[in-house]
């Protein structure tokens, strides 16, 4: 037998394959780490919100926070009630805090509209059941949602004990409330919810609902970093008697209520 033998041929072929693989790997390594946070991005150790229900109640049927959020995030108004999509909304007190209601609670208290949104739990059941990590918990406490990765299985909707998640049963685009903003809409077959305005925190702004509430001089919503002892939200959480929704479940919500 002349020329190269079988062993030598295989050895050379292996070397060649390794060389060919090294090119894209070297390219990828050379291009690694080319991203940085935006200047002025808000960095928090643990984001949290306090909702003062009394202040909110004094404003009657005020919903500037809901309007501001839903307009900016292109949350559609679905015609079919069972297809409703919501990030932040008002619910009757007796449904938000059933354990605070007795057979003698007056109707005015039972029916009091109470603001609810994703609780950004410390121990979120939605994250635990998501099979694709389309929803996950960030180091700063935000329970994030990546619609690119959502396969629409709706386990998270079943897992969430607060009903904070909505599913796009149909294309939301024809049902937008007005001229859309630059924020992406969602598409049929994905789940969506409040993200504590992660896109605004990334550029140093606070959540829209909080800004809208302050804008009308109400201040029923306080948002901030629990890791910062000097923040207003820290002072409230450490200094006042607060309630959380369904604490017995052990999810440890980080939306607190002053009832």
């Amino acid at each position: 037998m002349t020329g190269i033998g079988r062993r030598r041929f295989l050895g050379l072929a292996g070397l060649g394959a390794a060389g060919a693989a090294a090119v894209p790997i070297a390219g990828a390594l050379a291009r690694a780490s080319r991203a940085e946070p935006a200047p002025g991005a808000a960095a928090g150790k643990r984001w949290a919100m306090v909702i003062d229900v009394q202040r909110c109640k004094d404003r009657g049927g005020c919903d500037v926070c809901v309007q501001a959020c839903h307009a900016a995030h292109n949350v559609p108004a679905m015609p079919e009630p069972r297809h409703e999509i919501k990030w932040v909304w008002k619910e009757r007190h007796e449904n938000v805090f059933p354990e605070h209601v007795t057979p003698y609670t007056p109707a005015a208290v039972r029916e009091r509209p109470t603001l609810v949104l994703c609780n950004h739990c410390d121990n979120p059941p939605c994250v635990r059941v998501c099979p694709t990590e389309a929803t996950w918990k960030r180091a700063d406490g935000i329970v994030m949602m990546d619609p690119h990765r959502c396969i629409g299985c709706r386990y998270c909707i079943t897992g969430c004990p607060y009903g904070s998640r909505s599913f796009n049963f149909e294309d939301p685009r024809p049902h937008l409330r007005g001229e859309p903003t630059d924020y992406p809409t969602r598409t049929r077959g994905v789940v969506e919810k409040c993200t504590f305005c992660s896109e605004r925190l990334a550029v140093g702004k606070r959540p829209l609902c909080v800004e809208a509430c302050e804008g009308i001089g109400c201040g029923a919503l306080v948002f901030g970093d629990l890791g910062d002892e000097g923040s207003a939200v820290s002072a409230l959480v450490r200094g006042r008697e607060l309630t959380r929704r369904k604490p017995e479940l052990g999810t440890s919500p980080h939306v607190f209520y002053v009832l």
Partner: protein
Amino acid sequence: MFDGGKVVLGLAAFLGLVTSPAWVRLGRGGGEPPALEKPAGEKQCIEPTAFMRARHMQLLDEWRDTVVRGGARVYLASDGKRHDMSLTGTCLRCHADPEKFCIRCHAYAGVEAYCWDCHQKKRRAP
């Protein structure tokens, strides 16, 4: 080789069948890439043209993961300039109408880009 002639003939027929779409396309002509509308007043994208042409999909995938999952928003280009990693916010600043750029070329290449199912095709912010 047993039945060499039949085998070669069979192989030739198989190859002809598999490559038939390309032959039909060539015979019909008009295989030229479509004319894309280039932004007026801009000479180069955020990275060299050859890189963008070959690798824009990897770049956009990287942007998507870095922004949504990593929480960082600023891209440091190879020329040292910084860009907001945003399809609607940055790409559409120059490529104002994706129909005349992204979608036109993707239709030619037969590659469906579903970015616009969610991302806005029209940039509104200043």
